[in-house]
């Protein structure tokens, strides 16, 4: 069980605690007062202004809810829509879950310490809301659940806490986006996420971010994958953002558990990204893969990856490839840590520019230099993600295609 008073006490002590990595953010610059958005029924969703709908769509949220297993939509600090439309799937706002669901105590702040840093502390002390998505044992989701955290109020600090649970033998796909209203410039998003993948469950989590240029973003997430479970985590961020730092951690706590992280990042001028992932392989048969594709158009990107092999008979691979198109910086930091004999771990990192030979080859087939460059960039970003349902693959392709237009 959890005790909100105790959590608050711990969080209070960490209010000013800087994060271990990433530039510090002055929280007093932002306003975390609650907004007053009213709840929307299903039919009202479609009556949102077109400009907002488009922003949502870019972050993977389809207001028509076609081919979706459920929807969670939060605007600033308020949940404005939440419902599940598939057998075996639950979607509940976390504030409600904390009041009504007795089991929530087994998950709330169980993977992340509330006093990790000032951001986790803020997420407890000023919790706005967040989603709890749960796939019941043995349930197989056909369509992904969509969740979107939308920001509209200028200079807002949004604090959310999400919990995702794939019960034993279940299959759950989630597409989640964060997006800002077209007019919005500055804000801070703080998001705590705890992932539980139980025995033989499969969870795919695809996150697409569309931030405003002056946004600061501090997600804090940890996952726990039990025996035979699979956690597939995709992250796509193609739009400028002032400062984004995250370092999600996954613990493989049972035999044959698997985690795979794929990220695709395009860094524009004035943007700072510090991201990557860490996976602990603690049992025989564990497999882990971290793949990052980064492009800098003048942005500053740090791409980390850390694999820790604690048991023999584990396999892990890290691939970090960066392309510098128009200046900027890409700093790849791949780390492999083998703690016993019999681990099999490898990495491959490369940072560079597009090979002239490839451009010339495509030009000799009739493409202009710009078309050839765009084609190669698109290829570079199109990562094959095994196990990803085709719809989600299509969402990723769409995000990449959209950004193409800005990039060139």
């Amino acid at each position, binding site marked *: 069980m959890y005790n909100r008073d105790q959590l608050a006490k711990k969080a209070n002590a960490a209010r000013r605690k800087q994060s271990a990595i990433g530039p510090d953010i002055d929280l007093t610059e932002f306003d975390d007062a609650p907004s007053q958005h009213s709840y929307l029924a299903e039919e009202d969703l479609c009556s949102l202004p077109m400009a907002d709908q488009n922003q949502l769509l870019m972050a993977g949220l389809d207001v028509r809810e076609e081919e979706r297993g459920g929807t969670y939509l939060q605007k600033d600090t308020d949940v404005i829509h939440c419902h599940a439309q598939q057998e075996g799937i639950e979607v509940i706002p976390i504030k409600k879950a904390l009041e009504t669901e007795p089991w929530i105590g087994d998950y709330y702040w169980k993977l992340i310490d509330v006093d990790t840093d000032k951001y986790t502390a803020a997420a407890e002390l000023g919790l706005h809301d967040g989603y709890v998505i749960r796939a019941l044992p043995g349930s197989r989701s056909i369509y992904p659940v969509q969740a979107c955290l939308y920001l509209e109020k200028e200079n807002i600090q949004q604090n959310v806490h999400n919990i995702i649970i794939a019960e034993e033998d279940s299959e759950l796909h989630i597409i989640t986006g964060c997006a800002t209203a077209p007019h919005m410039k500055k804000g801070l998003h703080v998001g705590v996420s705890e992932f539980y993948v139980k025995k033989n469950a499969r969870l795919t989590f695809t996150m697409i971010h569309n931030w405003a240029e002056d946004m600061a973003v501090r997600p804090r997430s940890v996952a726990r994958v039990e025996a035979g479970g699979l956690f597939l985590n995709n992250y796509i961020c193609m739009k400028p953002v002032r400062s984004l730092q995250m370092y999600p951690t996954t613990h493989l706590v049972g035999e044959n558990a698997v985690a795979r992280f794929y990220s695709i990042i395009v860094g524009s001028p004035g943007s700072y990204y510090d991201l990557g992932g860490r996976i602990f392989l603690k049992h025989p048969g564990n497999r882990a893969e971290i793949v990052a594709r980064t492009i800098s158009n003048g942005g500053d990107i740090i791409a980390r990856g850390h694999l820790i092999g604690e048991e023999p008979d584990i396999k892990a691979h890290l691939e970090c490839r960066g392309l510098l198109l128009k200046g900027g910086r890409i700093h790849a930091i791949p780390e492999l840590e083998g703690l016993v004999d019999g681990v099999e771990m490898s990495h491959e990192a490369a940072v560079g520019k597009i090979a002239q*030979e490839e451009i010339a080859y495509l030009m*000799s*087939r*009739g*493409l*202009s230099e710009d078309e050839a460059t765009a084609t190669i960039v698109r*290829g*570079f970003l199109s990562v094959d993600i095994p196990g990803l349902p085709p719809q989600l693959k299509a969402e990723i392709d769409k995000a990449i295609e959209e950004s193409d237009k800005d990039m060139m």
Partner: protein
Amino acid sequence: MLQIEDLKVRLGDKEILKHIDLKIHPGETHILFGPNGSGKTSLLMTIMGYPQYEVAGGKILFKGEDITRMAINERAELGIGMSYQRPPTINGLKTRQMVNLCAQGEVAVESLARQVNFEAFLDRDLNAGFSGGEIKRSELLQLMAQAPDLMLFDEPESGVDMENIALVGNTIAALLQKDGSAEETTSKMQAKLNRTKMGLIITHTGYILDYVSADKGQVLYDGMLSCVSNPREILNCVGESGYEECVRCITGIN
């Protein structure tokens, strides 16, 4: 027509082509021989327009236009295409997509691919891990979609297995309008006149001659095109007495 006049080419500070004169008329296919490192690939890359092959003298004309300083893609637009000896891998670009790009629009990719026995590779990244023989078929497939008027083939049959060699040979013949399809409806004389496609084929083995009736053979030696003759004769001569002897003897006769 392709017309090359007194062409000199440098690669870095090395002069690789000293003096090249070459004329390929519409409907003609030439075979290019020459020892390893003699500059055959370099000549093709220069015609295609690769900027690292610096033209230090002379000019290249195609369809009456001076293309010596033209960008690669402009030459492609004019109708020049190439089948590469060692093309680069393009990660993330599916072969299928590339065929569409070559055709500059939607094209019946599957049926084109079937002609070169390549359907199974369409969803693989272009050239990624392709074997030597597979690369040749991939290159041919792209040229089929692109349909240029002048085709430069860099050792199209090397590394191709016995079963696929006929496929490759016949495909090249078809691309160059040398497959006899025209002869069925018109006289041989007329077919020759109707032919417009031009070809320049590099070969070491000459196997391609079993499928493509070439009009002329040339030997590139010491930075120059040393002799023009029937390609079979050149092949026999080189086979018997080697390049050096062959070049001396044929030039001597001329």
